[in-house]
Structure formats: C-alpha cells, structure tokens
C-alpha cells in the first residue's frame, strides 16, 4: 500500500470541511456568536465550489474522482445516508409513546413498529452479513427481497394507481366553464384527452358504416393534441421554467451569501 493520496483537491476539502468546522466548533464552545457565523462561512465555501467548477476545469476543482466539486458530491451522498436515522428515531419515539400510553389507534402504531423492525432487521442483516438484500446465489429471494416484492411494491403501485381515480374526480370538479380562464383550461384538457385515444372509434363501434369517418376524426384529434402539446403548452412551460429559474437563482445567491438562513433555524437578527 502506497501512502495516502494528498492531491490539492482532497487537501482543500480537508481544510474547508474538516479542519475549519472542527476549529469552528472549538471556538463556538467559547464564543456563542460563532455558533451562527462559522456555519454560514463554511456554507459559503461549499456553495461556490460547484459554481466555480462549472467554469474552471482545473483538476483540483473539477476532475472526476479527485476535484473538489465531484468529491464533495460524493461526501454529501454519504451525509444524506447518515440522515435517515434522524427520521427513524422520531418515528420510533412517536409510535412507541402511542403504544406505551395505549392512545387512540395504538394498535396501528404497533403494526407500524413491527413492520419497521422486521423489514429493517432483514435489511441490516443482509447488508452486514454480506448475503445482500436481493437474491441469493441459488436464485431464491432473501427475506428482504421477498417482502419487497410481495408487500412493499404492491402497496407502492396501488397507492400510485389511486391517481387514476383522483384524476377523474378532480377533472369532473375543476373543469367547469366558470370564467374565461377556467373555460380555456377545460377546452385544452378535453381536446388533449380526446386526442390521446381512439375515442371516436369507441363511439362508432356499434355503427360499422361510420367507422372510417371516426378513424379519420381520431387521427385529426391526434394531430390537434400534438399541436397543443408542442405549441402553446411548451411555450407556456418555457415561460414558467425561465421565470422560476431566475427566482431560484436569486434565492440560491441569497442562501450562499447567508442572507436567507431560515433553513438553519436562524432568524434575520442572528
């Protein structure tokens, strides 16, 4: 094994996001005001790294695998991985309390906890034992995979499929010709829906002589749909995207400069 790789990018990362925070913490223990300011300074550095990296291809900043920006990206995937227990602790706290005090609906909290513990235990076992969480070498499922296939995925897919119903009920309620704007909304929705499927073929199904006419009408509706989607729809989307992106970019600058800091639980005065 050769010595540790100390290229410029890694060293800078170590200084900015390892040593400076540790120094900041030590100072923060002494001077409470630094508990607020130091994180904002470190945040500023973290925020400009990807922006500089967009324009400066220097190796220490941008090279894949060793530049500051791609490397920091790697770090933060890990940091996000550390975050999940924060949520799990809260879930266990809330539900264990409900079960403990036999509050209303405590049985469901118990079901939740059992689900979490069983699935979590299979997952941890799979990851730690090296057996994995997918399939065993003989092609059979691990318990984790089995529960994923027969419990997790069907539930996920079914909740997702509720949308088909909610699309129908929302359309019925919302698409009314109340005023000009609502009427435009309604007409666009109906035209596009009618153009996506052979609707006229369905209507002409019992009347064979009408079918050729219905088929060409369906095709025409298809072209109308395509025109709406590519024309007015994508123009408006571009407008939304440009406006929102400018607003987002301004907000990003405010965050990086520390003007916007509510995400740290810091008010204006802090």
């Amino acid at each position: 094994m050769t010595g540790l790789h100390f290229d410029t990018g890694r060293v800078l990362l170590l200084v900015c996001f390892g040593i400076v925070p540790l120094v900041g913490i030590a100072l923060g223990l002494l001077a409470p005001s630094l508990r607020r300011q130091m994180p904002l300074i470190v945040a500023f550095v973290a925020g400009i790294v990807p922006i500089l990296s967009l324009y400066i291809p220097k190796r220490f900043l941008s090279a894949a695998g060793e530049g500051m920006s791609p490397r920091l990206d790697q770090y933060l995937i890990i940091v996000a991985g550390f975050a999940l227990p924060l949520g799990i602790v809260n879930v266990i706290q809330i539900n264990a309390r409900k079960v403990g005090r036999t509050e209303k609906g405590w049985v469901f909290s118990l079901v939740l906890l059992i689900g979490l513990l069983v699935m979590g235990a299979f997952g941890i076992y799979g990851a730690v034992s090296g057996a994995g969480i997918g399939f065993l070498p003989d092609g059979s499922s691990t318990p984790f995979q089995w529960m994923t296939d027969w419990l997790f995925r069907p539930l996920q897919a079914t909740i997702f499929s509720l949308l088909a119903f909610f699309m129908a009920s929302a359309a019925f309620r919302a698409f009314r010709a109340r005023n000009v704007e609502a009427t435009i909304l309604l007409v666009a929705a109906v035209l596009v829906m009618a153009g996506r499927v052979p609707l006229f073929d369905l209507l002409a199904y019992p009347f064979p002589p009408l079918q050729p006419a219905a088929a060409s009408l369906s095709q025409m509706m298809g072209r109308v749909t395509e025109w709406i989607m590519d024309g007015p729809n994508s123009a408006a989307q571009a407008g939304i995207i440009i406006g929102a992106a400018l607003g987002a970019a301004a907000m990003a600058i405010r965050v990086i400069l520390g003007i916007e800091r509510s995400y740290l639980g810091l008010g204006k005065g802090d």
Partner: protein
Amino acid sequence: MSLFDRLLGIDRRWIFLFVVLAVTIPILAPLGLPVTTTGSTRAAFDYIESLAPGDIVWLSFDYGPSSAPENDPMAEGFLRHCFLKNVRVVVCALYPLGGLGLANASVARVAAEFPEKKYGTDYVNLGYKDGAEAVMRRLGENIEDAFPTDVNGQPISNMPIFQPKHQTIPSGDAGMGGNVAGIRTIGQFKLVFTVATGLIGEYWITLVNAQFGTPVIIGPTAVSAPKYYAFIGSGQLKGMLGGMKGAAEYEQLIARKYPQMAKFYRSTRLFTGTKGMDAQTGIHAVIILFIFLGNVAFLLGRRQGRT
C-alpha cells in the same frame, strides 16, 4: 335541490365506480378497437421485419415496475416477433429499481410460448448491470467486459448465441487485429431495442448509436415519447413504439402479418397493449363524459338561477 345541483354535487365514489368498470371490462372482454398505426410504429415494425433469420439483436429492459403496464407489452411483443423470425435475442436490464425482475418475468413468459427456442442459442438473459452509461461504453469495446456471465452466472464466452451467423466467416475480425471470431461488440448487432422510462433510452441513441452505429428502436412511456420524435426525424432512431398506444399498434401489425399471433393476442389469459388501449379509451370517455355532464348541469343551473 334541483337536478342540476344534485348532479354537480354527485358523490365522487360514483365516478370511481365508473373508472373501475371502464378498466375492468376491457381486460376481461377486449373490444379490440381499431388502433390506427402511426408512422413511427410502422417504421419500427418494418425494420424488424427486414431482419434475416440468424441475425442478432439486443433487448434492454430500461424501465421499472411503475411503468410496466405500458412497457411490458412492447418488450414481450418484440421478443415474440424476434422468435417468430428466428432472430437471436440478447436481453439485459439497465434500470436500477426492478428492471431485472421485469426482464426475468417477461423472458420466462415469452420463452414458455416458444418451447422450441433454446436458451444460450436462440436467446440469452445477461441480467442487470449498474451504471448504464459506462456499461454501454464497454459494450462498444467488448461485451464480455460488461457482462462476463449471464443472469445465472454462466460465462457467456462459450455460448453458441455469440458465435457468428455463418460458420464460414473467416476469422480475423476487421480492426481488431487478432483472431477474433463471433460477436464481440454491440457494433455487430443488427438492432438495439430499448424499452425505457427515463434517461437510459436516450443513452442508447446518443452513445451507442452515435459512437458504434448500431440501429436503435425505442419503446418509451407515453409521457416521454414526444422528445424522441426529434431523433426519428434526424435518423438516429429507426422507429418508436410510443406508450401503450404504440404497443397496441405493434401488436396489431404483428397479428396482421402472423395469423397465429392474431389468435394468440385475442386469448383472455394475457395482458396486451391492445386490451390496455381499450381500457384507456374507456376511461378517457368516462372522464370526458363526466366533464360534459358537469358543465351542462353547471351552465343550465346558472341560467336557472338567473331567471
């Protein structure tokens, strides 16, 4: 309370009931609504028809369970089409969440319909690999680098499917500088068929087609279909099955060409794009009908209120 008010305030569960019926009835008893075939589907079908027996093609499962109802019929239709034409098929899955399970299920289902097809000779399932872009780049150099073994862990090096079509082809592959016989790179495939939801489908076009020249046909979900029209226009795509409608069109083209498949696609034991399209039409009709009734009641009610 007037009739109009009652219609406007209808319990939404009645709408839900109609939705369920509009989906279930076509699945149980398909209408087989005539689906007008679009140019992009016909182009895809014609290209696959132009393949010769013994040609080798690549089928990639680049979608997950959430879009399986749209994408499964495309992948299975393509497998059937290839088997009917005696074209060899290499299958892989590049979609991280659940792509492999879908590939295994689809291959097993279609292979059971064609018992004469031999695994390893007529088709092979290479399984899932992480990092679609990197995998594709490696496929352009050496397939074995990307997929040393198939899904069951069997080394692919000796599989008959990767041997050249005509045994008489002299060894000494052009440009390889060595004594290489058989199929080594994705460039030697006659076609890549990617059934895709997200970005992976685009990689096949912008990476594999652009760099290694393999023709590509795509089967995207309806939502992502529009962006691929540009690739058809520029010739980077040989064809496209756009969403469930594209799958239904493709099925009808197959059934028209191969009468035995027409019977098969009418059987009730199987889900097909054609049935899906019937259900889609039904639901769209139900929603439009309710919007229509709601507006009639609203406008008449408003007029009544005024007088």
